[in-house]
């Protein structure tokens, strides 16, 4: 507490000194006969030098900090579409970087060069159609290029021409992820939010036979170089499925199924060697504010060779086989049935979510 008080007192003292100096400065300039609304040549010069120094040091600092922080940046994308996105990012960076450097230099250089106080007259220059045409047309052309390149990448990313070889489901809730694999049949069984219970946390509809070989995991395992389609949903509030290394992000929305297809191109092992970091780990994070523990929704992700993935998948036990589920299934069957029927009477509508989630 005493240090806080000390810091506070020092701060107050500094402010008092600054204010007193500022007041004295003003009285002095009035005594010297400074006119209202006038800025002296010295003041103009001091500020002009501040601006040019800010420009130069800022530019140096900008380039230096990129070099300094580069090791912390995301490594090269580990997915097919991610590489295209990074490329587009770099092209945009090139365009904007050039414009940024030129315009910032002009702003601060003009502020420096054309500072008042030298008795020079301002140049009356109200408009020039030619100049205005140039800086309407040039940005338009650049924007057109960026839009065309952007939309090509956009459609390639979200609507790839190949069929996915694997479907995985990620279900978000406060504050957790559950991952479901389709199992041997390659088909995810239906789910319905009203079937959710302690024994059946995803609300899987066991009457759908496709669900019987589905297995549920905490970690994500993916085979390398295979197009995988992530089917996303949320139980309670909005979440967002974010895999930074793969440039993947898609919201998980209660009631509306969403999806994201992508092809991982590097195994975890390869990435570890590449980065020379034996502890490197791909991971899943939540990117949409979902409540008080939003910052704690992590799952690890492993990319493996086809054989390793198959071996891992074969070791997983289907959720249906877990004894507790079977027992509770027998007991609860009638209850759930009742619930959904009641709902239908009330709203006159058929719950749509389960139908949407059928692959």
């Amino acid at each position, binding site marked *: 507490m005493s240090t806080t008080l000390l810091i506070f007192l020092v701060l107050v003292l500094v402010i008092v000194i*600054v*204010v007193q100096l*500022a*007041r004295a400065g003003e009285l002095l300039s*009035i005594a010297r006969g400074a006119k*209202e*609304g*006038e800025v002296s040549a010295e*003041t*103009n010069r001091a*500020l002009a030098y501040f601006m040019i120094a800010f420009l130069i040091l*800022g530019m140096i600092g900008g380039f230096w*900090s990129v070099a300094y*922080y580069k090791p*912390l*940046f995301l490594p090269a994308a580990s997915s097919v579409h*991610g590489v295209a*996105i990074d490329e587009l990012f770099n092209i*945009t960076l090139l365009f904007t970087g050039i414009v940024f450097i030129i*315009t*910032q230099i002009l702003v601060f250089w003009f*502020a420096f060069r054309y500072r*008042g106080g030298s008795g020079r*007259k301002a*140049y*009356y*220059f*109200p408009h*020039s159609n030619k*100049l*205005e045409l140039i800086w309407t047309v040039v940005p*338009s052309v650049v*924007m057109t290029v*960026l*839009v065309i390149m*952007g939309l090509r990448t*956009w*459609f390639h990313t979200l609507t790839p021409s190949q069929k996915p070889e694997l479907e995985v489901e990620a279900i978000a809730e406060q504050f957790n992820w559950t991952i479901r694999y389709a199992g041997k049949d390659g088909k995810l069984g239906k789910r319905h939010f*009203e079937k*959710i219970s302690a024994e059946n946390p995803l609300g899987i509809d066991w009457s759908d036979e496709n669900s019987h070989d589905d297995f549920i995991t905490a970690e994500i395992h993916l085979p390398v170089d295979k197009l995988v389609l992530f089917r996303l949903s949320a*139980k*309670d*509030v909005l979440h967002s499925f*974010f895999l*930074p290394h793969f440039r993947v*992000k898609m919201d998980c*929305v*209660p*009631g*509306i199924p969403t999806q994201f297809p992508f092809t991982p191109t590097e195994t975890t092992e390869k990435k570890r060697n590449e980065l020379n970091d034996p502890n490197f780990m791909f991971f899943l*994070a939540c990117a949409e504010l979902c*409540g*008080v*523990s*939003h910052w704690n929704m992590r799952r690890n992700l492993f990319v493996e060779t086809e054989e390793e993935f198959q071996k891992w998948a074969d070791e997983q036990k289907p959720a249906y086989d877990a004894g507790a589920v079977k027992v509770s299934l027998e007991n609860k069957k009638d209850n759930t049935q009742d*619930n959904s029927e009641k709902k239908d009477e009330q*709203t006159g*509508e058929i*719950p749509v*979510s389960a139908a949407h989630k059928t692959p």
Partner: protein
Amino acid sequence: MSRQGRFLFPLLIKLPDMSQHANPSASAHEVHADAHAHEEHGHHDSFISKYIFSQDHKTIAKQFLFLGIFWAIIGALFSVFFRLQLGWPGQSFPFMETLLGRWAKDGILDPNFYYALVTMHGTILVFFVLTAGLSGTFANFLIPLQIGARDMASPFLNMLSFWFFAMSSMVMFVSLFLQTGPANGGWTIYPPLSALHEAALGSKVGMDLWLISMALFIISVALGGLNYVSTVINMRTKGMTFFRMPLTVWALFFTAVVGLLSFPVLFAAAVLLIFDRTLGTSFYLSDIFIGGEALSHSGGSPILFQHLFWFLGHPEVYIIILPAFGLVSEVLSVNARKPVFGYRAMVYSIMAIVVLSFIVWAHHMFVTGMNPFVGSIFVLFTLLIAVPSAVKVFNWITTLWRGNLRLTPAMCFAIGFVSLFISGGLTGLFLGNSPIDIPLHDTYFVVAHFHIVMGLAAFYGMFAGIYHWFPKMFGRYMNNTLGYIHFTVTLIGSYMIFWPMHYMGMTGVPRRYYAFESFEFFNQYGGMNQFISVFAIIVFCAQLLFVFNFFYSIYKGRKATELNPWGATTLEWTTPLRPGHGNWPGDIPEVYRWPYDYGKDGHEFIPQTEPLKPGEKDAGH
């Protein structure tokens, strides 16, 4: 009164006449009103009618400004609190417990309250400071003074506009002291998080008060906006054609138009959310299992809320930045002693931005699962809006070229504005392009982008406006030395705080994280977070210096004795040093030329009230 205005907007002709009935003393039609008559009318003003329930646009402007400054201090203080947590997670700051009580037990910020602070920081700054505090202040102050009107079209509605804002403020302020805390679902209040009481502490009573406060606020915006629009259209003095209006008036006029067209949509969104929260409707809710039970809501869409929210939310950023455009254009031109370059292009680019601002909203929603084709349309319009913005930037830069710059604190902030608007605007080209938005969405890259381009830039515009028009508002000058310290510290700090955030965003560090301890990959920016927090505290202190300068100068600043200290052409500088209600003691001056005749034909400046010489052409036409 301009004939042109009447032809363009016949529906609004009646408005000023109505106001005449409501308040005859403030009518703009009394061109021959006499100064003494006004002052004598004024003597029956009690303290309450003069300073509290005032109908004088200048007093209302100051009320908006004072309340805006009050909220700015609170909003900035909140950012200091959560920056302390981000810079030094888990470290104890005993003074936070003193100030926040149980929300900072042992001096460590509670995550619930961290999210409340983040939410309130956004709400306060976006709505109360940069909407009400910025356009509320300057639209009220400058529109009648610069177009040559004695007051607003309806001074009474104008007064109501402020008091609705005040009520809205009170409700929001009360929500800060609730047992369960204020709203904490982010300033965008996306349902279901904001709709379900069990989803977050802030989604209990705090969210109810947030929604009520916002409804009141929207009424305030609507009343103010109606007034600004009808005043500009109907109450311009003789000779003040549309293309003789200063760019401040153009910008404030279009700000009001955008506000009138977009805020009601947020009102609808808020009302539907209230229904979902209290009446059990399902506008935004479907298929929800929370707190151990499946809810009966069915058929709603959380994405619908986002569409409604951003239909306001995106025009809202232009509501914030357009007044700054206007203020900066004016301050740059006056202090460069040059006409603003390409006046007409400046007006047309504002118009283009206004139109486009209504068809870009879904660029906030590229990764909500929206149909990719719909997303592509919004990419097109979003990048298109960069064109008029680029025109404005190049025109400002050309306004500086070969000027004779008088680097007043206002001018410095205007130059800083151009620099920041470029920096923040260019990163918009990354985020507006949907594929690049995939990795950057909801990361610190977005935080850096919008803080620079609309937060800081709008603040710089506001500072430029305050320093520049302070003598007209209070009859005194602000202290220049303190102004320069404020500027230099703020400019350095602005870049030091937000530049590094781009790197964090490029690394994928998500925004709205209380701490990064679960993600060693994100946690490697610990040192950078401390650096940012240190500068945030320094910049906060610099703003306190500004606040001190502001209030000190109202009472002790150098007295203004010159009517037109900046050598400006516009009408507000033809009023007395401390204009009374009605602004001009004698006739309202007539206008003969555009407002940017600086340095023309060897003249330092030619006021708008000076008739054209034989054969002289008005440059605005």
